[in-house]
């Protein structure tokens, strides 16, 4: 089993590349979701402020 993960002494290179890829994908998802949420909140706040004025 550990031999499978050792990748013939290239383990550090191979696994860091796969780890980095996973990290970038997670960042892309989280970043997108956060931005959507913040835009949603801003727009809601703005609409509420406008409607309570009138």
């Amino acid at each position, binding site marked *: 089993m550990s031999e499978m993960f050792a990748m013939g002494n290239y383990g550090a290179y191979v696994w860091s590349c796969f780890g980095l890829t996973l990290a*970038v994908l997670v960042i892309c998802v989280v970043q997108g979701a956060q931005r959507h949420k913040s835009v949603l909140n801003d727009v809601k706040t703005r609409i509420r402020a406008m409607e309570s004025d009138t």
Partner: protein
Amino acid sequence: MWTWFHKLASPPHFYRLSAKMIPWFAVPGIALVVYGSYAGLFLAPADYQQGDAFRIIYVHVPAAYLSMMTYMVMAISAGIGLIWRIKLSHAVAAAAAPLGAWFTFLALMTGSIWGRPMWGTWWEWGDPRLTSQLLMLFIYFGYMALRTAIDDPLKADRASAVLAMVGAVNIPIIHFSVEWWSSLHQGATLVREGGPAMPVEMLYPLLANIVGFTFLFGALVLGRVRTEVLFRERRKRWVRNLLLPDGDLE
């Protein structure tokens, strides 16, 4: 056809439809990438020259391919937006840019990590493939900086579209750099005369990851276009009705 297209490009319709479409991209994307990565790491035989280090190809090639594909999506959408004045097109271009920058960064990083054991160096400044790829990262940054620098959204759309289209010149340079100049980087593995240069046990996981990453890109870009549309349409009636139904003022 045109009525269908106009309906699709209408922001409220797009906003509703895209939410339903995201899982259709995300689920097959995740399945393909899980299979491709597992098979690439554990089932494919080691390369006779590079040993297990070659397995980096399963993330490096999809990242590099997507970095350029995303650029083409960005430049073509920006061009369509510029010529036909379709706002949704500009939204697609703006949404694609940060994803493209991330994929470019990933391609550069995984390439560098792969280069260390194979070429004996993390980076080589004179190398045409490496430097043209790095240039693309800066073009993405420039595009995003230009958009944030211009307050008027119409002007930002137009100016950034011109930048995206001019920067597209770099794409064929990246692609053909390994043929036109001498480079440390190896030549094409998949798209070459005589077919792909690898046996199917190595090839199928790679194709699965390339297609899978493309699906994931589809899901990610759809999500970001929704955010763009919501922001651009924030003063419109349909957004108000969608966010605060029944005149809810709380």
